[in-house]
């Protein structure tokens, strides 16, 4: 056993230097990941607070707790914060930033200063959007549909749009950094076929970031210009076409859901293999499925517009393509499940979250099939069915994966273990709370309750109360990790370099890793997920 003294004395990225400046001017990908972790956690709680207010309002059919304008601002800000400032940066900017260079055997991302710039852009965008929210709020919904956003809303649309515009460049630069790093910075022997699936998934997401984000940027810029100067690109009163906005918006915002979910899928591939102690089942298929999702994801945007007034034949084509993008997701689910077959399975918290992810993502994916089906979409479009569907994918899928990844790599990031019993309890609470919150919304949706309703007819109340009750359990499930993660920083057990006895370059360096990651450039001679040759027992720290 290594002595504690040895671990504390060792130079790592956290203790290499101190002071605010050493953090705000850092170009170390690991420190930038921590900066992102702190910022997006703050955004998560803000967005979560708005969600809680929404659920409380919906306890009763009448709009009695808050005014309808306030309600509209709340769901708009919940959407903007959660989508643009939490979900999109969550796994890529925190875990991806920290892990991609370690996993490919590089000392840093390809462009460390660009990486820091991208965090500053994120902060600038977030602050701009927050200022818009604090000084009056936005009430357009996160979708900014014209002509409501350009003409009829009296709120701070321009500020919010510019905030997202700026944050978009943060996302573009992160994606660019990942693509270049994975192409050019891999250690000797780290071939594409040996690349961890987490890197494949982030690579696929990065393609979407680089190709999709500029389109939303220019679209929101046009919205802002239209509001400011009354030019008529989207305004029908001035001859514009509001559907053009929807096309341009969804051209990014549909692929954007894959920016959110793909890195989460990468996390699950790492965890399922580690806790089953097995090679991943169908490595090539999972890797290629990521790329297929990224490519096909660009061809399905108009399935958000089946009742918006597009032509019947366009709807047909987009419906067909939408089924095609569902297939690679199904392939991944089956492969993860097959990976567990004849494994040697251990139920640590990351694995529990991964179980939750696979189950909930399956439900989210299958209900996506409902929405791709033209005749059904007409009934459930813009209802709570859609709300439930994307929360199953985004919260049941993505946030579960984020939590799984955070628990899995927490010892690597901080050098400390989290308390396992509390973590298991929180995983259970999240799973139960989540399903209680969102499953009733599928039923509400098919019954016809439209989304974004501040007040609703009384027959929908019982299911809404159930949903709110679930949300409070979910909230507890999220508060707990917040507490024990902070607690573990001081009181957690020393983790050692490889507490899970996992394979992968990131586990071969000490925890927390030294500033330059690797003293010597590693040479990879083994296949990905080579658990066959990994000793079964816990590797001791002094190894």
């Amino acid at each position, binding site marked *: 056993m290594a002595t504690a003294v040895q671990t504390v004395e060792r130079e790592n990225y956290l203790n290499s230097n101190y002071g605010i400046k050493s953090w705000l001017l850092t170009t170390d990908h690991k420190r930038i990941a921590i900066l992102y972790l702190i910022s997006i956690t703050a955004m998560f709680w803000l967005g979560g607070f708005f969600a809680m207010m929404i659920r409380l309002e919906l306890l009763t059919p009448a709009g009695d707790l808050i005014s309808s304008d306030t309600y509209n601002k709340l769901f708009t800000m919940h959407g903007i914060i959660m989508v643009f400032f939490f979900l999109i940066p969550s796994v890529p900017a925190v875990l991806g930033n920290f892990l991609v260079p370690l996993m490919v055997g*590089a*000392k*840093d991302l*390809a*462009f*460390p200063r*660009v990486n820091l710039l991208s965090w500053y852009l994120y902060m600038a965008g977030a602050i701009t959007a927050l200022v818009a929210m604090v000084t009056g709020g936005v009430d357009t919904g996160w979708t900014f549909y014209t002509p409501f956003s350009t003409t009829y809303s009296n709120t701070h649309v321009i500020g919010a749009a510019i905030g997202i515009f700026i944050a978009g460049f943060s996302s*573009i630069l992160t994606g*660019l*950094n990942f*693509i*270049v790093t994975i*192409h*050019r*910075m891999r250690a000797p022997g780290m071939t594409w076929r040996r690349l961890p699936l987490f890197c494949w998934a982030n690579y696929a997401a990065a393609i979407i970031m*680089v*190709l*999709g*984000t*500029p*389109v939303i*940027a*220019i*679209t929101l810029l*046009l919205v802002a*210009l239209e509001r400011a*100067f*009354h*030019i*008529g*690109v989207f305004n029908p009163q*001035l*001859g*514009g*076409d509001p559907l*053009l906005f929807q096309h*341009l918006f969804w*051209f990014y915002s549909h692929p954007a859901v894959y920016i959110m979910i793909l890195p989460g899928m990468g996390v699950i591939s790492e965890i399922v293999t580690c806790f089953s102690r097995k090679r991943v089942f169908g490595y090539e298929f999972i890797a290629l499925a990521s790329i297929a999702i990224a490519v096909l994801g660009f061809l399905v945007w108009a399935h958000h517009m089946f009742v918006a007034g597009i032509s019947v034949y366009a709807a047909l084509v987009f419906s067909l393509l939408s089924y095609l993008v569902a297939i690679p997701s199904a392939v991944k689910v089956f492969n993860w499940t097959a990976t567990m077959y004849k494994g040697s399975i251990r139920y640590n918290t990351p694995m529990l979250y991964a179980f939750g992810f696979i189950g909930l993502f399956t439900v989210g994916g299958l209900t996506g099939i409902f929405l791709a089906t033209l005749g059904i979409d007409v009934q459930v479009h813009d209802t709570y069915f859609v709300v439930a569907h994307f929360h199953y994918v985004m919260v049941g899928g993505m946030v579960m994966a984020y939590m799984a990844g955070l628990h899995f790599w927490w010892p690597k990031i901080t050098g400390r273990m989290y308390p396992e019993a509390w973590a298991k309890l929180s995983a259970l609470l999240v799973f139960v709370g989540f399903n209680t919150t969102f499953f009733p919304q599928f039923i509400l949706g098919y019954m016809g309750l439209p989304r974004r309703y501040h007040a609703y007819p009384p027959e929908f109340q019982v299911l809404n109360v159930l949903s709110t009750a679930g949300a409070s359990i979910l909230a507890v499930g999220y508060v707990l990790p917040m507490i024990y993660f902070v607690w573990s920083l001081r009181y957690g057990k020393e983790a050692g370099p490889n507490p899970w006895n996992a394979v992968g370059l990131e586990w071969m360096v000490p925890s927390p890793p030294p500033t*330059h990651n690797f003293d010597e*450039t590693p040479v990879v001679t083994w296949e990905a997920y080579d658990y066959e040759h990994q000793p079964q027992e816990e590797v001791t720290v002094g190894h």
Partner: protein
Amino acid sequence: MATSDIGDIQVAERALQHHFADMEQQRDTSSFGMWMFLLTEIMFFGGLFCAYLVYRASYYQAFVEGSQKMNIVLGATNTAVLICSSLTMALGVRAAQMGKPKLMVILLLITILFGFGFLGIKAVEYHEHWENHEFPGPNFHFETGNPAHPASDPQHTQIYFSLYWAMTGLHALHMVIGIGLVAWLVIAGLMGAYTPHYYNPVENVGLYWHFVDLVWIYLFPMLYLISKKHGV
């Protein structure tokens, strides 16, 4: 010669960042990154091009009438100016590669001059349109100037002008940024930062400059030369 070569290599070694194995990897990586960035830029303009195509297909006549108002002489001059600037930029990169920093600085200064020339001519055009109320918004007013053919669809001609201002404005913004970047190269070049072993910033800014030039090569026919036949 030999001593200066060693000096060059020392400059290059100072420019090697800690996380790259060698200069070759660094150069390779930065140029790959630049191409990825240009891909993003294509999509950035792509949204506007897409809006342009949709509206042009639907309201062709209105777009024709709008494009009649363009000053083709100034537009064509500007196209020529930009093509020349691309040439001097390319020669500047070549000079850096050949290890002729003074020549590089001179060529880049000419490039900057061309850049300002382009912006100056563009400003003259903008001024004309502004005076003629051809700026979208409440003050927009459009007449063909030919009483026999009154404006058929001024509303959609306004969209033409919205796109004209947005696309050329965004392009001009890229030009301004480009001029700034070239100026930075000039200063660094004067300080002796670039050698045949290390000139990838020059190369990357060159790529950017050519891209911005290329965008204009598309903008010019799309906005200025829609149709002379259907004219008024």
